[in-house]
């Protein structure tokens, strides 16, 4: 592919190698950012210098403030995700396997799903306080929805004919579930867990903003904003993005590994 591209762009006076292209715009932006701040063209309160962000990173790291906060965020993220994902798997499977359960719970579930998730936070704060339990409940809730939906769809998407074949071979219901339904539904279930992981990170940040108590990356940013330390805020943004990226990459990798048994139909 890169060959075709370089052939296409060979008319251009300067050849930019393909791997560099993605870096050019960000590098240019950082350069402009640095120049703007270096020559004080923008209010330094509003835009910290790149080097200041780096310094802030080093300082936070050295003070030992950053790591505990990151750990606190990750811990509640994973705790909430675990709870939400388990509950979601349970409800999704029950709804997927039993039409009655789907008819019974489905409409209520879909109605509840319509409420923008952050709108629950004020209620949660009344019921669970603003401490750790409230945050974990909220994070669990954000992971819960996508897991339910995907588990349900995954189970429902298993081809009728596969189940019929299993019946012909006189599989017991348990066998049908273990050997036919589950493998068929697995890709979709993983997709749900993956989405749930992403949403739970989003939920973690939200919970830390809105239920502001205790350590966490969200609090780092709030703190930075309140004391008008732009470098701290930018650092927080970078970390929030980095963690999101890391979680996502991890999930993609796990997913690919766990689904390797699938025969590619390509």
């Amino acid at each position, binding site marked *: 592919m890169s060959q075709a591209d370089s052939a296409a762009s060979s008319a251009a006076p300067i050849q930019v190698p393909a791997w560099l292209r993605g870096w050019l715009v960000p590098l240019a932006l950082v350069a402009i950012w640095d120049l703007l701040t270096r020559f004080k063209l923008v209010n330094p309160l509003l835009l910290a210098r790149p080097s200041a962000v780096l310094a802030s990173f080093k300082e936070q790291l050295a003070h030992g403030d950053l790591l505990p906060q990151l750990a606190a965020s990750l811990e509640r993220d994973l705790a909430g995700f675990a709870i939400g994902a388990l509950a979601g798997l349970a409800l999704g499977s029950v709804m997927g396997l039993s039409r009655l359960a789907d008819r019974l719970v489905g409409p209520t579930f879909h109605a509840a799903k*319509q409420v923008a998730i952050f709108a629950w936070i004020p209620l949660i704060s009344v*019921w669970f306080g603003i401490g750790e339990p409230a945050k974990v409940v909220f994070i669990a809730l954000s992971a819960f929805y996508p897991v339910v939906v995907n588990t349900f*769809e995954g189970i429902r998407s298993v081809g009728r004919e596969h189940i019929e074949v299993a019946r012909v071979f006189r599989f017991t219901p348990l066998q049908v579930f273990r050997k036919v339904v589950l493998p068929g539904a697995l890709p*979709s279930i993983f997709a749900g867990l*993956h989405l749930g992981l992403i949403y739970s990170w989003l939920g973690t940040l939200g919970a830390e903003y809105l239920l502001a108590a205790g350590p966490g990356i969200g609090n780092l940013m709030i703190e930075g904003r309140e004391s008008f330390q732009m470098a701290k805020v930018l650092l927080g943004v970078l970390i929030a993005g980095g963690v*999101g990226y890391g979680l996502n990459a991890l999930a993609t990798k796990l997913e690919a590994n766990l689904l390797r048994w699938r025969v590619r139909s390509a």
Partner: protein
Amino acid sequence: MSQLEVSYGIASSPTHPPVAIDTTPKKAAPKRVRRVSLVGWLLPAVLLLVWAFAAKKELVAAQILPPPAAVAETLLEQVKSGELFKNFAISLARVFGGFALGGLFGVGLGVAMGLSRKVEQYLFPLFNAISQVPVLGWLPLAMMVLGIGESLKIVIIAHATLVPIALNALKGIRNVPRQYIEVAQTFKFSNRQLLRKVVFPASVPAVFVGIRYGLTQAWLSLVTVELLASSEGLGFLIVWGRQLFQLDLVLAAIIVVGVVGLLLDKSLERLEARLLRWRPTATWSGQPEPQS
């Protein structure tokens, strides 16, 4: 549809990292009509009864869980006084402002990246990096730069909208089947004709998926922004009710938020069906084989 390819078709494997767009709930459950049978009312009815009973017997304090009647009353009162409508109108204006802005840029960016590998190579990595940071992550930064005025809300909503729309537009254009393009080339279509008659029509469904998802995201972010920094709007109504410890107001506002979200999504669904009627079969399974 051939039976053999059904098996794994549905899952929205989030092939693309951050937003995992092409996703699930909407497309995955396409044909099965979700007919709410009577059984579906059972659970809400039971919940409502338990709730009413608990409130009546004062098993829980009214500050923790107000009786359903109080919620209904507050809702009515809010409607009558026009307070609800005022806040609703403000919220809606913000959503559409941000959505229009984000949608416009999103489609533009997605189409540009979809049509030109070069643009994609230059811009996609940056775009990808930016979309890795959740919308909420930008909020403190945006608040410092933009203050907490109207522009903050518009920008946050626009950002939330832009990412899924751009991604889906990019994907939609990339996934136009090669054969279509080859046929068009055989007929010696000009580039312009190719775009107008082949590429754009073929990518509309994907773009629409992005638009629907974008609107959902816009609504979600609106509520979040209003919860955090606002003095009017539906989200503010929730915060305000919470501060006054009037949970009936909180619950009433939550109901409105849910209903509006539902209506927005349903109306787009309608629009989508209407706009795509020209397609002989309206079954775009959502994941054509990727063209390399």
